[in-house]
């Protein structure tokens, strides 16, 4: 089968593309190589994916001939996005509307006339915002606290709308803080491990007691494949790691893995940051058979190992 993976040179897209290629599918990868972090990281990701069955183009989804791209395609995995909560305020918001909302709408529009069996959209736990209502449930309140979260929620709503109005078989997956090898260099674990490796102080925003439901990349990939094969559509699922951990606990684990003590630099809480996240996984477990397998300590060890490989 032919699968389209948008954001195929990115953190999650590259892992997903690899998994699909290894399962014998053809992967039509698209990536814009957004300048949100150095290009060499994405090129490194892509080099790992490179194998027979991969077709890859560097392009902006808004500009290319999407009906042609979807010709003969069975599954669309829409992973491409302008990431980052903190950078989504102010002037930069135009990038978020273009890359997160408009690109998704164009892809959905093209999907109307295609014969795709599933359009899997990579949404985000940031759609929930700073709720006191934990764990976060799919039918709970969505009130993002960052423009990024607003853009992801908008695109998710478009996915639902195209299902309802035109029968495009969409499923949205709300990812909870994904980590693992190839993690973006602007994400906390990456920043933390990089600094720790060099013996530098680690910036910790807030007091370190904030917690996240950290999810290993391979589990997210499995969730995507399960969503593609899921017979239903027009639905939303949380994909979380299954346990909530504080940033402080993560620091302790990395100290154990690396065998050295971390230096911490406590900084003020950032605008748009959510205090706690925790995913209710009942829906994903019962309908998708989703079952996060990788424990945080093991996943962190894998990311640490990768970090040694890519060097500085």
């Amino acid at each position, binding site marked *: 089968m032919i699968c389209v993976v948008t954001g195929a040179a990115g953190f999650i897209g590259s892992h997903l593309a690899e998994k699909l290629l290894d399962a014998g599918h053809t992967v*039509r990868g698209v990536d814009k190589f957004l300048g949100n972090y150095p290009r060499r990281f994405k090129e490194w990701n892509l080099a790992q994916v490179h194998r027979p069955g991969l*077709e*890859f*183009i*560097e*392009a902006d989804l808004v*500009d*290319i*001939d999407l009906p042609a791209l979807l*010709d003969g395609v069975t599954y669309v995995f829409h992973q491409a996005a302008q990431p980052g909560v903190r950078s989504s305020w102010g002037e930069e918001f135009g990038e978020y509307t273009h890359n997160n909302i408009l690109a998704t709408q164009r892809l959905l529009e093209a999907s109307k006339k295609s014969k795709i069996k599933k359009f899997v959209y990579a949404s985000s736990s940031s759609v929930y915002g700073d709720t006191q209502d934990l764990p976060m449930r799919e039918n709970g309140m969505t009130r993002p606290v960052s423009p990024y979260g607003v853009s992801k929620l908008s695109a998710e709503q478009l996915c639902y709308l195209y299902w309802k109005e035109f029968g495009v078989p969409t499923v949205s997956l709300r990812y909870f803080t994904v980590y693992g090898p190839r993690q973006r260099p602007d994400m906390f674990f990456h920043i933390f491990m990089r600094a720790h490796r060099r013996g530098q102080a680690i910036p910790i925003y807030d007091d370190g007691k904030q917690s996240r439901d950290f999810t290993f990349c391979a589990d997210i990939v499995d969730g995507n494949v399960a969503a593609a094969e899921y017979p239903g559509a027009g639905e939303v699922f949380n994909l979380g790691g299954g346990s909530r951990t504080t940033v402080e606990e993560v620091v302790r684990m990395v100290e154990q893995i690396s065998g050295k003590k971390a230096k911490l630099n406590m900084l003020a809480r950032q605008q748009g940051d959510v205090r706690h996240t925790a995913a209710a996984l009942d829906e994903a477990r019962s309908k998708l058979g989703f079952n996060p397998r990788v424990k945080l300590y093991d996943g962190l060890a894998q990311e640490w190992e990768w970090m040694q490989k890519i060097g500085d």
Partner: protein
Amino acid sequence: MPISQELLEILVCPKCKGDIHLTPAGDGLVCEACRLMYPIRDDIPIMLIDEAIKLG
């Protein structure tokens, strides 16, 4: 890994959405209407208007 014919067939000029063709050297995709060449680097067609090379 060479670019597959199938992939080449689905690509259009991102500016005018018109047809493009491979250069004889295989190092780019040309849109005659816009007089732009989209480079192919490491077997990856770069279909970005900003990256396109203006043809004389």
